[in-house]
């Protein structure tokens, strides 16, 4: 399909130009709120008519400004995100919501606020372990967030509006899951590279527009004749974020990527927010319990004196078992962004779990620059040679 204004072509276009639509919306009077991490409850923004816009780093943009603000031995993604912000890349933003998804995000939040002047800025202190006391604290944090948002929007966040927004975002989650169903056949009907484009496009649009785009894409992909070529392996990518198609193309050179655990992929769409009488609590539960990012530590044995390793692995990675079977995955790539401690600490245990399922895996570290791509290609191809 060559119509630039529809389906996959439109997603590809938004992937490269990104902010065009939100700039139009801003000119029409809408307020655009940035967020650097999928743990920010976007439903609360949508409910108040604010447009959420995911801010990213850029592996192709040489770091030049951020050394004034952050140390060099620090998360390269956060460094790149703030570097882009300091260069005025997203200067149309009316506000920014950050969250304690990991320590670099938390530290960067305060630095970010002091370097970039947004009309609105809010930081959510999200707990890191999954347990009942954490949920209570997180709910109180979301309540604080509600108050500052209401003050900024000049409007109360009613239960009805919030429920409606939750339904729209749940619709988006359902559509993304439907899209991932289309990677099941061999060869998949949609490539990992195209999915990176689609997800980035979704994170650049208001939720209803994203849903319309997804509906078009699903229809197009189901009926396409130009589907990806069948390659020798079906890969699962486990990473913090994979937000650039050049990285995905390294994996897809000689394999099909059919599933991921990445916030540039399915991570924030896998679960669903429950519709209950207390939507704020439902949001707190969803974001704390349901999103499977390594930043949330879900130990099985809280309150017990002895650690049961197998049960612990099951609690942390058990959801992958069905996925690996259903998507017929035969290899996993563990892609670590340098200095990413939350993900690094999970790797030995994740590999133990994958081994127990008989899934070969390889571990690749990169520094979030394009210079890392050539060595990455050698490692990926060598891994594919070992499993072929």
């Amino acid at each position, binding site marked *: 399909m060559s119509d630039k204004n529809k389906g996959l072509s439109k997603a590809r276009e938004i992937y490269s130009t990104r902010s065009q639509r939100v700039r139009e919306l801003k000119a029409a009077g809408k307020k655009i709120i940035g967020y650097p991490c999928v743990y920010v409850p976007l439903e609360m923004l949508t409910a108040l008519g604010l447009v959420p816009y995911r801010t990213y780093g850029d592996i192709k943009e040489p770091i030049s400004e951020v050394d004034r603000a952050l140390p060099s031995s620090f998360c390269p993604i956060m460094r790149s995100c703030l570097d882009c912000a300091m260069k005025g890349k997203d200067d149309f933003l009316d506000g920014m919501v950050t969250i304690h998804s990991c320590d670099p995000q938390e530290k960067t939040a305060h630095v970010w606020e002091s370097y970039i002047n947004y009309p609105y800025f809010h930081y959510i202190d999200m707990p890191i372990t999954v347990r009942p006391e954490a949920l209570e604290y997180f709910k109180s944090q979301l309540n604080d967030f509600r108050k500052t948002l209401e003050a900024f929007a000049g409007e109360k966040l009613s239960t009805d509006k919030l429920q409606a927004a939750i339904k729209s975002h749940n619709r988006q989650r359902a559509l993304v899951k439907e899209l991932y169903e289309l990677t099941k056949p061999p060869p998949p009907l949609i490539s990992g590279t195209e999915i990176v484009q689609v997800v980035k496009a979704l994170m650049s649009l208001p939720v209803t527009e994203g849903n319309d785009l997804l509906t078009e894409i699903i229809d197009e992909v189901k009926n396409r004749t130009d589907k990806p070529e069948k390659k020798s392996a079906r890969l699962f990518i486990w990473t913090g974020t994979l937000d650039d198609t050049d990285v995905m193309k390294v994996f897809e050179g000689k394999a099909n990527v059919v599933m991921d655990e990445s916030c540039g992929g399915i991570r924030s769409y896998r679960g669903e927010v429950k519709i209950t009488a207390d939507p704020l609590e439902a949001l707190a539960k969803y974001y704390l319990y349901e999103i499977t990012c390594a930043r949330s530590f879900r130990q099985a044995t809280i309150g017990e004196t002895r650690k049961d390793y197998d049960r612990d692995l099951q609690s942390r990675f058990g959801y992958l078992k069905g996925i690996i079977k259903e998507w017929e995955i035969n290899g996993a790539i563990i892609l670590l962004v340098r200095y990413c401690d939350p993900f690094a600490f999970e790797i030995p245990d994740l590999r133990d779990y994958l081994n127990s399922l008989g899934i070969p895996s390889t571990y690749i570290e*990169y520094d979030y620059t394009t210079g890392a791509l050539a*060595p990455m290609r050698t490692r990926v191809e*060598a891994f594919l*040679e070992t499993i072929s």
Partner: protein
Amino acid sequence: MYFAGVDIGSTMTKVMLIDKSDNLLSAIKGPTGPEHRQLANEVMRQALEQASLQIDDISYIVATGYGRLNVPFADRQITELSCHARGVSSLFPNARTAIDIGGQDTKCLKIDNGKLINFVMNDKCAAGTGRFLELTAAALGIELQDMGDISLKADKKIQISNLCTIFAQQEVVALLSHGEKLENILAGLHAALASRVAALARRLGIEPDLVLTGGVAKNTGMVKAMKESLDCELFVPEEPLLTGALGAAILAKETYMKAVAEGEALPTKSRRLEKATFFS
């Protein structure tokens, strides 16, 4: 029937030609330089000349190494990890682990039945690679190839605390200004590099026989330091630079023979040895 392996590494380009009985017909080495494609062409021409063959005589060509995509006349690309594993096991049939220390990569390979089954590589950094020795040799004003022999004369080993290539150079200069003897500093440098490579290899798990390849395996001081660090027997091929190209040539032969045996048509590239451009 003749087969070629072309290994374009970050520092050196290597070509090997073999016949169907694995007899070696020619082996050529040359510096890679910035123009991979044109050099592949030239080194291949020399290899053909040495073997008195024409390019059309070659049945199948495998390219490997960092520049493997820049060999316009290669029929297939295979990573240097699989090629080294294949080359090493053809020379040492009992090899289970190989360590290849090249110009920009250090690779530890687990081998089973001639095939790569697992690997680890160094991080994207010069520490722990041949470049570390190259740059420190330059800083000390000595020739790279003399480094190992000089280090063997050491009467003590100086501790080098930092393995960052830049910081290690600073440390070496400081040690010289303190009057430390060159050979003792070199022994320390080799031990430091060996301990880093050994740590990498232990992540993979070392099973005998263990083979050391790559340009750094030509360095006598480094072979000694590696033996000390790993505390085990270490085999070094006569031509440690050429195992990748050898493996590529053998894999070219095996790919071709398998296709012939199965009656499959094997697509090959144009055999013209013309200069490639980036637009082709």
